[in-house]
C-alpha cells in the first residue's frame, strides 16, 4: 500500500517549490512529483509591445542569480530575430560575463549543498557557517570565488546583478586596458583557488557516495548506490556559451521541442497519508492535508523529442566531453568540474580582447517579425529565449529556462530513493525556481500552440 508524503516547501535553493511523493512501505519513492509553486511572473506578457532594447533588461529581472544568462539570452534572441551579427570583441566581453556568472553561481550552490555532506572520516555533517577549521577556510574560499565572479561581472557587465552593458547589437562599452588588466588579475587569482576548491568538493562528494547512510531528522537513512539515477536524455547547446538561430550549425533544435501542461503530467489530487514531524525543518506536511500537483504546478512541462531531458553541467559534459557518471552525485561532480574551464575561458577572452575596438554592430536592423531563438548555457543549463521583433518592437517572447526542463526529469530521478533523501537529489540540480515559472499558450481546443510559432 503506497503512502503519500509531501515536503513543502523544499529548502536551500532559490525560489519556492515542493515535493509530493508516493512511497512504498519501506519509504522508497514509487512516483515523485517535484513542482514549482512560485507564482507566475508574467515576464513574457510584459515584454509584448516593448522595444527590443528594453525586453532583455526586463527578462533579466526574473531572477537575481543568473540575470546575466537571461540578459544574454534575451539580447541574443532579439539579435537572432532581427538578424544582427555582433563584433568579435563584443562576443569576447559576453563570454567573460557568462563565465563570471557561472563561477559565482556554482560557488553559491556549494554553500547550499555542503550541509547535506559529511566531513570525510567522520559522521559530522558540514556546517558552512561554522568558525571552525577546516570548514572556515572552505567558506572563505567560496566567498573569494564568488567575489571574483561578481567583480568580473561588474567590470565587464557594468553591474554584477542585472548587467547593464549588454545591448542589442553588441555591448555599450568596451573595457579600458586597465579594466582588462583587472579582469586578468582576478581570473589568475581565482584559478588556483578554483582548482583547490574543485578537488575539495569532489572529495567531499565522493565520500558521500561511499557512505552507507545519511542522517535525516535523527534517523539513519540508507543511501542507495543509484541515488538520483534516471534514464532521460540530455540537452546542451555548448560547453560554455550557447547557440542561436543565427549560427551556421545551430546546436539547439526548436522542432524537437514541445510543451505540455502540468495537468497532463503531474499527479491528480492526493491526500497526504504519511507525515514525519522530525524531518528538518519543522516536519513534513500534516497527514490529511490535500495536495494537487497538477493544479498547483506553475510551470509548463517542456519536452525534447517527446521526453523530459536533463540540462545543466552534466548535460554539457555528457554532450561535449564524454562524461558518463549518473546520479545526483555525478551531477554535482560535473558542476565542480566546470570551475576551471570558466577561468580559462575568461583568461583566453581577456587576452584576445582588443580594448580599442568597437563593440557595437555598425548596423542594427529593426526586425521583420521573424522568429529567432538563442540558447544560452546558464549555470543551471540551457536557457532558451525565443522572440519575434518587428520594427524594433517585440511581438512575441518566450523563455524556456533550465529548471523548467529539470523539473520533470528530476521528478523521474526521485524514483527508487528513500523519500528522506529526495531533497538531496533535488538540490543536486541546483534548482532556481523563480525563472522556471512560466505561462504556456493554449489554443481554443486547449492544445498547445507553441509549435505553430516555428512553422
Amino acid at each position, binding site marked *: 500500500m503506497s503512502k503519500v508524503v509531501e515536503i513543502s516547501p523544499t529548502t536551500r535553493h532559490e525560489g519556492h517549490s515542493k515535493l509530493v511523493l508516493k512511497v512504498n512501505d519501506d519509504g522508497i519513492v514509487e512516483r515523485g512529483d517535484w513542482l514549482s509553486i512560485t507564482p507566475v511572473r508574467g515576464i513574457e506578457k510584459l515584454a509584448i509591445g516593448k522595444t527590443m532594447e528594453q525586453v532583455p533588461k526586463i527578462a533579466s529581472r526574473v531572477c537575481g542569480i543568473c540575470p546575466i544568462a537571461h540578459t544574454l539570452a534575451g539580447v541574443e534572441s532579439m539579435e537572432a530575430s532581427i538578424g544582427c551579427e555582433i563584433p568579435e570583441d563584443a562576443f569576447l566581453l559576453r563570454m567573460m560575463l557568462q563565465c563570471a556568472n557561472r563561477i559565482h553561481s556554482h560557488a553559491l550552490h556549494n554553500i547550499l549543498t555542503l550541509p547535506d555532506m559529511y566531513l570525510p572520516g567522520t559522521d559530522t555533517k558540514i556546517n558552512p557557517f561554522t568558525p571552525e577549521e577546516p570548514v572556515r577556510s572552505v567558506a572563505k574560499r567560496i566567498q573569494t570565488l564568488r567575489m571574483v565572479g561578481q*567583480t568580473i561581472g*561588474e*567590470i*565587464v557587465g*557594468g*553591474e*554584477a*546583478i542585472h548587467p547593464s*552593458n549588454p545591448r542589442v547589437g553588441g555591448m555599450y*562599452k*568596451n*573595457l*579600458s586596458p*586597465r*579594466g*582588462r*588588466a*583587472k*579582469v586578468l588579475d582576478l581570473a589568475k587569482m581565482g584559478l588556483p583557488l578554483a582548482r583547490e576548491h574543485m578537488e575539495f568538493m569532489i572529495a567531499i562528494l565522493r565520500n558521500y557516495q561511499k557512505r552507507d547512510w545519511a542522517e535525516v531528522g535523527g534517523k539513519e537513512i540508507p543511501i542507495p548506490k543509484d541515488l538520483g539515477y534516471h534514464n532521460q536524455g540530455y540537452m546542451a547547446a555548448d560547453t560554455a556559451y550557447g547557440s542561436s538561430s543565427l549560427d551556421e550549425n545551430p546546436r539547439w533544435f526548436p522542432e524537437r521541442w514541445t510543451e505540455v501542461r502540468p495537468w497532463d503530467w503531474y499527479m491528480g489530487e492526493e491526500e497526504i497519508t504519511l507525515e514525519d514531524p522530525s524531518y528538518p525543518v519543522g516536519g513534513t506536511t500534516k497527514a490529511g492535508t490535500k495536495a494537487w500537483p497538477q493544479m498547483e504546478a506553475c510551470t509548463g512541462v517542456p519536452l525534447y523529442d517527446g521526453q523530459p531531458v536533463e540540462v545543466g553541467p552534466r548535460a554539457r559534459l555528457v554532450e561535449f566531453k564524454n562524461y558518463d557518471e549518473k546520479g545526483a552525485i555525478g551531477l554535482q561532480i560535473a558542476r565542480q568540474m566546470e570551475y576551471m574551464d570558466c577561468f580559462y575561458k575568461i583568461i583566453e577572452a581577456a587576452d584576445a580582447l582588443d580594448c580599442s575596438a568597437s563593440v557595437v554592430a555598425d548596423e542594427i536592423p529593426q526586425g521583420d517579425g521573424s522568429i529567432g531563438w538563442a540558447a544560452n548555457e546558464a549555470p543551471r543549463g540551457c536557457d532558451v529565449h525565443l522572440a519575434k521583433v518587428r520594427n524594433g518592437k517585440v511581438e512575441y517572447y518566450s523563455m524556456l529556462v533550465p529548471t523548467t526542463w529539470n523539473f520533470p526529469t528530476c521528478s523521474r530521478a526521485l524514483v527508487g530513493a528513500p523519500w528522506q533523501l529526495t531533497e538531496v537529489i533535488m538540490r543536486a540540480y541546483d534548482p532556481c525556481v523563480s525563472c522556471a515559472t512560466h505561462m504556456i499558450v493554449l489554443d481554443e481546443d486547449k492544445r498547445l500552440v507553441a509549435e505553430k510559432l516555428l512553422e
Partner: protein
Amino acid sequence: MVLGNYKQAVAARSTDPDILRKSQDGGIVTQLFAYALDAGIIDGAIVAGQSDEPFKPEPMVATTREELLAARGTRYSISPNMSLIKEVTRSYGLDKVGVVGTPCQMQALRKGQLYPVGLRDVADKIALAVGIFCMENFPYQGILQLVEDHGATALENVSKLDIGKGKFWIYTERGATVQLPLKVTHKYEQPGCHVCLDYVANLADISTGSVGTPDGWSTVFVRSAKGDDIWAKAIAAGAFETKPIDSVKPGLELVTKLATEKITKNQQFIEDRKTKFTVGKELRNPYI
C-alpha cells in the same frame, strides 16, 4: 558656519611650474590629483576635461598626469562629473577614485555613498573628493552668449575665463581682455543654482577656490580626516607652497562674506519661489 567644518584653512599654490602655467589659480586640484596618483592614493580621477567645443567641459577619467594636465582650468559651464561615478569603477577598472566637483556634486557624491541605491561597490571606492567653490554655474549656451554676444569675442580665441573682483573676465589668445559686469551674467545662470545653500563645498574632503587669496594662489579648506591625511602627505612631499590664511589679503573675511551673500540670497529665493514664481501657492513637496 557658512564655511562648513574644516580642520585647517590655508593659502596654497602648486610648486610645479608645468601645472601653474595653465591652471586657473593655484593649480590645487590638478596638483593634488597628480600627487595622489604618484603616491598611489588614487588610481585615477574624474575631472572636467575638454570636449570638442571650446570651453565646453566633458567629464573624463584621467589616469595619467598628462590627462590631468589637459583638464586644467575652469570652464564655467556644467560638467556632469557624477555621471561617471559608477562607470569609473566598472569598465575603467578603478579601485581608488578621485573626484572633483562643485558643492552640489559633492552633495550627490556623499548621498550616493550614504544611500548607495544603484551604486553597488562604488561607495567604498571614493578615495579623494575635492570640492570647488561655486557661486553659480552657467549652461554652455549662456557662456556662448556672454562671450560671443556681450563680450564680442569668438570663443575659440579665448584663452581663459575668470570671475573675480566683481567682474567676468575674458582673456583672449592675442592679449585682449574683455570684462563684463557680473550684473549682465545673472540672467544666464542656471535657475537650479538659486536653491543651493553651499558655497565652499562643505562635504568635500578638501575644498578649494580662488576667493580670499591673491592672484595665482588658492584658498584651501581641509575638511575630513582623510583629506587632512592626504594634505599633510602632499605638503611633506613638497607638492604645495603654503602661507597662513591670516597673512594674505583679503583672506577668509571675503570668503565668509561671499558665502553669506550666496546663502542669504538663495534662502530668500527659496522663500520667494513659494509665492512669486508659481500660480500663487507653494510647490507641492514631492516627498510627502
